[in-house]
């Protein structure tokens, strides 16, 4: 598969605040039309990285290149950014507010009005256009903030915790909207702590811990490299069968499911055979990939 030119390239980017290094020698590439997950524990350096990408701060060393150009002020209009720290002008009407943010991204006039209306309709906010921001619920405010990040049709959309404060209905709406943006060819950087969502949306993942990159690649490759010979089981009978250190390394109970991590070298077939031989009624036997959640936790432990 031919790889298109990356939308965003970071090379050996380092940023320190006095004696604290927030980001150290970070290199990464974000390819167009993909959702790029930027994950990591609190204080890992994600926000600092994003702020350098949107040109709020400048790296101490290293380069950032967007759409084939070194980062500059003009490029800011090509980026849509939904920061984690976000808000709205409380007394300003939703429509006016969006127009102001559009103007800050150099979008004005009739085109701006048209897009404001279509986005409000898309996110079911049309009725709130002339309401002041303070009259909106938190979820609605979140959606308005999301619109400010995409109103100017940017090439790169950076979303920092876009799902916080949303109810399940709106989480789905937001997910769908993000995928639509991706389908429209936008490059999306998604930073979140909600691993289940990241797992469903991201094509690529980069994990940062303590200022360093600890993981980088497509989600599929990462999962494959973490494949740990795990089996999800549902069975009855055969008590005590799994207590065999020669075969099973770890057992975890997830409700009905039992997740069994086999010792290296052991094959799932051995386990299945043993269960069948012991007369256990197996209703589920599935080879499972580790979840992003598990990978995350393991990586954090490993690099602590």
């Amino acid at each position: 598969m031919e790889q298109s030119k990356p939308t965003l390239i970071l090379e050996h980017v380092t940023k320190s605040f006095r004696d604290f290094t927030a980001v150290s020698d970070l290199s990464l590439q974000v390819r167009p039309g993909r959702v790029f997950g930027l994950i990591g524990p609190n204080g890992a350096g994600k926000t600092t990285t994003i702020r350098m990408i949107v040109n709020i701060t400048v790296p101490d060393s290293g380069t950032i290149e967007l759409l084939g150009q070194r980062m500059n002020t003009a490029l800011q209009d090509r980026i849509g950014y939904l920061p984690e720290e976000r808000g709205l002008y409380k007394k300003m009407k939703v429509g006016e507010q969006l127009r102001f943010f559009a103007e800050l991204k150099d979008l004005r006039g009739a085109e701006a009005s048209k897009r404001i209306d279509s986005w409000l309709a898309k996110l079911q906010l049309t009725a709130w256009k002339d309401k002041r921001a303070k009259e909106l619920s938190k979820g609605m405010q979140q959606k308005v903030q999301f619109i400010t990040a995409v109103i100017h049709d940017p090439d790169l959309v950076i979303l920092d915790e876009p799902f916080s404060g949303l109810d399940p209905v709106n989480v789905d709406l937001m997910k769908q909207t993000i995928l639509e943006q991706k389908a429209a060819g936008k490059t999306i950087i998604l930073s979140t702590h909600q691993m289940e969502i990241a797992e469903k949306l991201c094509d690529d993942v980069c994990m940062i811990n303590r200022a360093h990159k600890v993981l980088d690649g497509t989600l599929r490759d990462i999962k494959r490299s973490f494949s740990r010979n795990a089996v999800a089981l549902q069975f009855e009978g055969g008590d005590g069968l799994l207590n065999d250190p020669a075969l099973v390394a770890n057992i975890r109970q997830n409700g009905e499911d039992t997740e069994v991590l086999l010792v290296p070298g052991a094959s799932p077939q051995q386990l299945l055979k043993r269960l069948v031989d012991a007369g256990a009624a197996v209703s589920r036997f599935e080879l499972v990939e580790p979840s992003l959640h598990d990978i995350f936790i393991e990586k954090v432990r490993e690099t602590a």
Partner: protein
Amino acid sequence: MKKFFAVVKREYLQRVRTKFFVVATILGPVLMAGFTVVPALMFSIKAGGPTRLAIVDQTGKMYARVNRELMSGQTRRPDSSPEPQLGQGDRKEQISQAGKLIKRTFTVEEVSLGGRSLADVTKDLEGRVLNRELDGYIVLPPNLLTDGQPEFRTRNAADLFTKDALKDAISDAVRGQRLVDAGIDEKAVKKASEPVDLKTIEAGGKESKGEASFFLVFGMGLLIYMSVLLYGQFVLGAVIEEKETRIAEILFSSMRSFPLMIGKLVGVSLVALTQLGIWAAAFLAFSVWGVAWLAGRGFEIPFPHIRPILFLYLLIYFLMGYFIYATVYAVVGSMVTTTQEGGQVAMPIVLMLVAGFYLSFNIISNPSSPLAFWASMFPFFAPITMLVRIVTETPPLWQILLSLGIGIVTIVGLVWLAARIYRVGMLMTGKKASIPEVWRWVRQA
């Protein structure tokens, strides 16, 4: 640049469209008119009719004169010069000046002893005063024209204004009688004691109304001071707004902090200028019609004649003064997290404006001294001190331009500083800044 205008537009429209702005704009001139017109009207209200007096004339010849003076006193205009006298005249003097504005009328009756003893008559009068048939009575002693002291008995001894009026009337009557007794023509004396009005002419210039211009400068200083206090809070609020609403990061991902800060300052300042402009227009309208109306009712409000160039200077230095102190609020706003906190931090700096006032007292008498020069170069004093110099003894043009240049550089520098502190402060979210920390931010950003 377009983004800068977007910021200006937002700051301006968001404030001008509020009910608060509309109400304040309308109430401003109403209050202003209230403070000038209402006291004048109140003085003109005659409360409770004429003051009823009885005069016991023991000299036997003074009653007619005193009566005449009292009656003529009712229509006598306040004889002080209409222009306010700076720093002169104590409190008491001012009160009696104000008292002269009150219209008073008297009804006077003569009470002759008619063979009775003085004690008898006064006892009788005392009774009438207590019964409210009279408001008071005066006893003119027989030796009034030499060194006798007249007595005024009244229920309301605290009425200074009436007492002053009586004192003046009796004094005038006694003076007149003494002149007649000495065989001097009363009218000739009056004519001889007409006061002289000193006409001040600036060397090489036209007739000067220096005093009027001087008060204008003070008025301007006061206007700067009030505008700074009033709108400085707006600037503070505008700078803090994005911190409180957590919008700053979105803004910084779209534009640099310097145009953002200038945009905010200009937007809010346009609001201030809009309001002041409306008030100025209202004041002008008041000047044209209101003064004529008041003059028609017997109140003359003096209007100073000022060189037109001075208006230009007033405008320029007003803008400079306003912007210098407004940017101080912007710097403070970039450091603090709440408006209240900001107000406290900014106050000592704004008091420098007051220091400028005090310096100008010295500068009036020595407008070309080194102190005057340096005070008018220091940007925080210049809006007042340089104006004082321009009015008193206009300094060379290069000095005026230099002070303006310093002012502009100061304003730009302060905005730059505010923008820098603001941006770095945003990156260190939630932290309250100490001064050394702010200094570090300024250097590192």
